[in-house]
C-alpha cells in the first residue's frame, strides 16, 4: 500500500526539507557574521603591535602577525599558576553544582513533603535581592569563619545549591513522566537510587547545561576571587587578566591575547559537551515515544 506513494512522497519531503534547511543555513550564516566580529576584533588586536593598534583608521587584518604576543603576555606573570587555580576552582564547583543542584531539584520536583511549595518560593526569593547589599555582610561572615584568603568562600557555596540551577533542573525534571519513578518505586528502589539511575540519565542535556553554565560562571568570576583572595599565588586567571588594564594605559595586545586564551577552554568545553545533547535526545525520545 505504501509502495506506490512512497517515492513521490519521499521526493517532495526531501525537496521541502532541502529548501527549509537551505533557508535556515542562510539565516544562520548571516547571524554568524554578526556574532563573530567581536571575536575577530579581539584576535586581530591580539596579533598587532602596539603601534599598529594606535593607528587610525584601525586595520581589519594585522599588517604583521605578532604571534609572540601570546607568549609574551603569558610570561608577564605567573599565569600558569593562575590558570591552574582557575581550572581547579571551575572543576570542583562544576561537580558540586551539578550533583547538589540536581539532588535538591529532585526533592522539589518529584517528592512530596510538608512545606515544599513555601520552601520553593523561598528558593526563588533568594535570587531577587541584588548582590550589592549582601556582599559586605557575606564577606564579614566568611571573615568571621576565617575563610578569607582560602578557596572555601568560592567552593563551599556551590556545594550548597544555587537557586537558579535548582529552579532550572526542577523544571526539566517535571517534564519527566512520573511513571518511571513509580515503576522503580514498585521495584523497591530508593529515591537516591532513582535520582542517580533514572533521573540523572534522563536529564542529561539539562545537567550538561548546568555544567556549562557553572564552569563558565566560576571561570569568569572576578568579584569572588577579588574579594576573598589576598595572596597573589592563589589568584585566578581573571584577576591575572586585570594586570593588563591600568589607570593610565592598557596593554591592548596582551589584554586581547590573554582574553582569547581565557575564552578557549569555555568554547572547547561547549563544543565537546554539546554532543551529549544529541545522545540525550536519543535516550529521552526513545523512552518517551
Amino acid at each position: 500500500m505504501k509502495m506506490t506513494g512512497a517515492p513521490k512522497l519521499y521526493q517532495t519531503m526531501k525537496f521541502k526539507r532541502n529548501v527549509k534547511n537551505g533557508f535556515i543555513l542562510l539565516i544562520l550564516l548571516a547571524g554568524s557574521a554578526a556574532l563573530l566580529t567581536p571575536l575577530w576584533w579581539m584576535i586581530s588586536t591580539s596579533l598587532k603591535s602596539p603601534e599598529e593598534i594606535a593607528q587610525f583608521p584601525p586595520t581589519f587584518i594585522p599588517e604583521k602577525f605578532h604571534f609572540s604576543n601570546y607568549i609574551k603576555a603569558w610570561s608577564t606573570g605567573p599565569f600558569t599558576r593562575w590558570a591552574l587555580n582557575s581550572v581547579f576552582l571551575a572543576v570542583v564547583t562544576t561537580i558540586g553544582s551539578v550533583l547538589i543542584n540536581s539532588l535538591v531539584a529532585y526533592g522539589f520536583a518529584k517528592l512530596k513533603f510538608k512545606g515544599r511549595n513555601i520552601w520553593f518560593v523561598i528558593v526563588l526569593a533568594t535570587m531577587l535581592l541584588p548582590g550589592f547589599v549582601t556582599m559586605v555582610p557575606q564577606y564579614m561572615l566568611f571573615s568571621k569563619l576565617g575563610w578569607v584568603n582560602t578557596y572555601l568562600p568560592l567552593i563551599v557555596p556551590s556545594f550548597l545549591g544555587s537557586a537558579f540551577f535548582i529552579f532550572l533542573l526542577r523544571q526539566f525534571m517535571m517534564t519527566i513522566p512520573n511513571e518511571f519513578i513509580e515503576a522503580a518505586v514498585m521495584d523497591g528502589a530508593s529515591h537516591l537510587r532513582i535520582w542517580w539511575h533514572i533521573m540523572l540519565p534522563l536529564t542529561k542535556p539539562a545537567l550538561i547545561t548546568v555544567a556549562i553554565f557553572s564552569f563558565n560562571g566560576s571561570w569568569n568570576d572576578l568579584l569572588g576571587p577579588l574579594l576573598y583572595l589576598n595572596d597573589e599565588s592563589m589568584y585566578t586567571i581573571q584577576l591575572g587578566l586585570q594586570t593588563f588594564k591600568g589607570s593610565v594605559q592598557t596593554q591592548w595586545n596582551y589584554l586581547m591575547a590573554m582574553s582569547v586564551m581565557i575564552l578557549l577552554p569555555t568554547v572547547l568545553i561547549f563544543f565537546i559537551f554539546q554532543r551529549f545533547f544529541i545522545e540525550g535526545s536519543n535516550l529521552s525520545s526513545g523512552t518517551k515515544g
Partner: protein
Amino acid sequence: MQQQSARERLLHGINDRGTNVSGNSAAMNNQAVSKTHMKTKKAKSKTFKENLIGYGFISPWLIGFFFLTAGPLVFSLIVSFSDYNITSKMHFTGLDNYKRMFTADDLFWTSLWNTIYFVVFSVPLTTAGAIFVAVLLNTKIKGMKIFRTIYYLPAVLSGVAVYFLWMQLLSPGTGLVNLVLSWFGVDGPAWLFDPSWTKPALIIMKLWSVGGGMLLYLASLQGVPESLYEAADLDGANMFQKFFHITLPMITPIIFFDIITSTIGAFQVFQEAYVMSKDGDGGPAHSLLFYNLHMWNNAFEVFDMGYASAMAWILFIIIMILTLINLKFGKRWVHYEGGDNK
C-alpha cells in the same frame, strides 16, 4: 488529576518501605511494625518518612540558606531602617530611607522608570529570540555543531572588547548598524548619544547575546519526542503548525523558567550600563541610570548603605510580586509532561 495523586501517594507508601535515606535497620523495623499494625499509625509514619526524605534531598540548600544566605539577607533588611555607612555608624532611623526614596529622591523614579522600560522590552524580545535561534540550531544539518558554538559565543564573550565593539557598531556616522539602516532609506539615530535611543541600543546588545538562553531551549528541545513530529508529518502539518502545537507546548516549563529568571536579571541590569556610561554616571541625561546603578552609587560612592539596602528591598518586593503572579498564571499555560505535581 486527583486520582493520580492518590495513586502516587499510595505508591509513595510502598516506596517508603524500600527507601531509607539514613539506611538504618531500626527504621526498617519500625516500618515493618507499622505496616502490620494500625492503619493510622502507618499513615502518620508514612508522611513523616515522606517529609524526612523530602527534607533530606533539599538539605544541602537548607544548610546553605541558613548558614550563608539568610544572615546577610536579614542583615540588609535591618540595615535598611538605619543610616548604616558600611564601616562605622548604624543608627536606627525608622522609615526615613523609604520616605526619602518616595518623596525626595527624583533619581529613584528616574532609575525605576529606566529599569521598567528595559524589562518590558528586553524580556519578551530575548525570550523570543532565544527560542527562535534554538529551534534553528536544532535542525539536523551538517556543521550544526559549529553553528551552535558560534551562537553560544556571545554568552561567554563579555567585558571591554564587546562593549567597545558595540560603541563602534552603533556609531552614528560610521557604524555598521546605521549603514545597514541607510540601505533601507532609514536615517539611523545617534544610539548611545541620544537619551531616547540609549535603552533600545542596550536592548539590541542584549538580544545579541541570547546564547545562554538559547542553550536552555536547545537542551529542552531534546526532550520533545521525535514521534510527535512524525505523527504530525503524516497529518500533513506544516512547519508553523508543528512549532505552535508541538514544540512550544513541550518547552513551556523552560519558557516559564526563562521568563522568571530573565525578568529578575533585567530588573538587576547593571554591568552594561556601568561600562557604557562614563564613570558609571548613567549615560546621557541619566537615560541609562538603572535601578541597580543608582543603588550602587549610593552604596559605594556615597557610602549610604542603609539607603541602598532600602532600595534593594523595594526592588525585592516588586520582583516578588511579579514572580508570584507568574507562578500563579504559570499553572494555566505551563505544560508539565510529568504531571502537575501538586
